[in-house]
């Protein structure tokens, strides 16, 4: 029973983090119609940014405050350089170009930060633990991670539901031609959406850095799991990504303990099951 409760905590915390990473992917996929294979690289970028900025500022939260705008600008630049040429092209070309970006980002990462696994210190004021059982305590920073993910998720929902940009995004998602006819500058809108997606993935990487070991190739793992979440939730659906991410997080945490032999497969089994019942994903448009 105790173990189940702890795994519930672990699963929620992991799920919230995946949601943050996957939400950008689903936005870009749903609104821009671009399959972005380099999405995981932005998570990796965030993790390495956390290393550099934490060593400069001495605190992960200051690093976050600096890193998110940096990632946003970087995303805007990548959109202007590469991604904007991919709209209205077929998915194969998108896959090729964004796969090329993965290789470039990996090489850049090696040149700047090297191949040694590195770690980011947990801030001392969050270094404590909360006693859960007679043997086990739960690190405070992990609770902070979950809380931070919830705050960022709420901010994202607020932007999408309550602001003018959000209305454009939602309109663009449901009917892009109509938005263009209404005279809204979709080029800027798309640049904003892509940059926001990059910032979200980088934020997830930065927040996760102190509880992860940061090494080359962490992005690939996140990319695959993000795609699974997007497919389960339904392409372009933020709500779907949220439900999908929590589902995957919990399945992974409980799977590791109760279905050890299948732990590696369980995530994909869930994806397959969802696709059989709802081919468009849980919250996808039925088409």
């Amino acid at each position, binding site marked *: 029973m105790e173990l189940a409760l702890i795994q519930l905590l672990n699963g929620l915390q992991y799920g919230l983090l995946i949601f943050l990473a996957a939400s950008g992917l689903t936005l870009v996929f749903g609104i821009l119609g671009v399959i972005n294979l380099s999405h995981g690289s932005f998570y990796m970028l965030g993790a390495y940014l956390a290393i550099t900025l934490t060593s400069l500022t001495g605190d992960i939260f200051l690093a976050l405050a600096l890193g998110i705008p940096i990632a946003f600008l970087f995303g805007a630049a990548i959109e202007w350089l590469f991604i904007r040429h991919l709209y209205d092209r077929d998915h194969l070309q998108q896959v090729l170009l964004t796969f090329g970006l993965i290789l470039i980002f990996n090489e850049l990462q090696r040149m700047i930060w090297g191949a040694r696994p590195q*770690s980011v210190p947990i801030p001392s004021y969050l270094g404590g633990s909360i006693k859960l059982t007679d*043997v*086990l305590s739960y*690190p405070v920073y992990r609770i902070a991670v979950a809380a931070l993910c919830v705050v960022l998720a709420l901010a994202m929902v607020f932007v999408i539901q309550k602001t003018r940009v959000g209305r454009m995004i939602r309109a663009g998602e449901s009917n892009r031609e109509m938005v263009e006819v209404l005279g809204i500058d979709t080029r800027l809108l798309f640049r904003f959406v892509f940059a926001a997606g990059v910032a979200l993935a980088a934020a997830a990487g930065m927040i996760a850095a102190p509880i*992860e070991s940061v*090494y080359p190739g962490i992005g690939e793992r996140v990319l695959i799991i993000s795609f699974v979440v997007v497919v389960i939730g339904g392409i372009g659906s933020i709500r779907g990504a949220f439900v999908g991410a929590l589902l995957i997080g919990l399945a992974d945490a409980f799977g590791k303990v109760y279905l050890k032999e299948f732990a590696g497969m369980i995530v994909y089994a869930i994806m397959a099951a969802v696709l059989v019942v709802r081919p468009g994903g849980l919250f996808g448009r039925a088409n």
Partner: protein
Amino acid sequence: MTNDIRISRRHALALAAGAGALGFAGPLARPAIAQAKPIKVGLLLPYSGTYAQLGEAITRAMEMYVKQQGGALAGRQIQFVKLDDESEPPKATDLTTKLVQGEKVDVLMGSVHSGVAMAMSKIAREEGIPTIIPNAGADTLTRQLCAKNVFRSSFSNGQVGLATGKAMVDAGIKKVVTFTWKYAAGDESVNGFKDTFTKGGGQVLKDLTVPFPNVEFQSALAEIASLKPDAVYTFFAGGGAVKFIKDYAAAGLKSSIPLWGAGFLTDGVESAVGSAGDGVMTVLHYADDVDTPENKKFRADFKAAYKSDADVYAVQGWDAMQLLDAGLKAVGGDVSKRDALNAAISKASFKSPRGPFKLSASNNPIQNMYLRELKGGKNVLVKTAATDFADPTTGCRLAS
């Protein structure tokens, strides 16, 4: 478009062929002088990437040994030819070939990464070139794949696991959970541990693993807490070891469930883990404070030469040279007498900084194993857990 690609590929091929020809022409262009030639020792070690520090420590100790002998062993000058293996097994075959056929080295030494050492030992077996492994711990190198010209100056993963299992039985531990990365080295270490631990009456409650080099330990820690073993046996190293020791302490497990492991868990990470590491128990074939004149002198010399402390990897590099020295003395420096050289190396016996050193029938060290406790950023020697401890020669034809 397609035309462009074809042309550029042809260019690339031509370039590659040219480069290859140059590479082979180099050694051939040199005049062959038989007598006064130095002995060429090929070093295939990591000088970049994750294991760069290990490669450096090994190389430094080797160079220090030759320097202390006046630059020559058995009257022959020693010339090191260094190649960076980058710890990338796919590149190992090419690099080894470059040393053996391109550079015509007389002796091979390497490597740190077991994947690299496996590829290297395959060529070594085919070529019959005397080869000394100063670190890589893959069991098979001195078990199924043993050879009369391949020697190890370090350890095998199973050997350290076996010794740790014995030490944990001796400490009165009855129930254990094991936890490691799911990869060859982790499996070998845990299998060694389980062998002696269960034979000593211990019980393994569960084997937990995470994929390499994943460091998401939270689920495993929760499980360890719920299983309530007497202790935990782990095999982690480097960055993963730092994180695991810290997470273990943060989860509040340290006070109730002692953390044990193969010595790599706490080697080179002492300062990084800080107070979270206090009380972690490990077993290894070396401890800094082994109380012998050889060790004291070795550590003092190393410190004086390189301004940094010697570690277990430096000791392994040092002993690789001690092995070679013993072999060369027996053949009067004539490396062409390979059979006699190999036979002499396999019979070598000397005082290593780690204690008495000799090789088993499968050419893996027979050595002491030390129980150490991490205290205040130092691995403090508690006691000798086992003397003259050998790895089984399972599957080795030399030993039958």
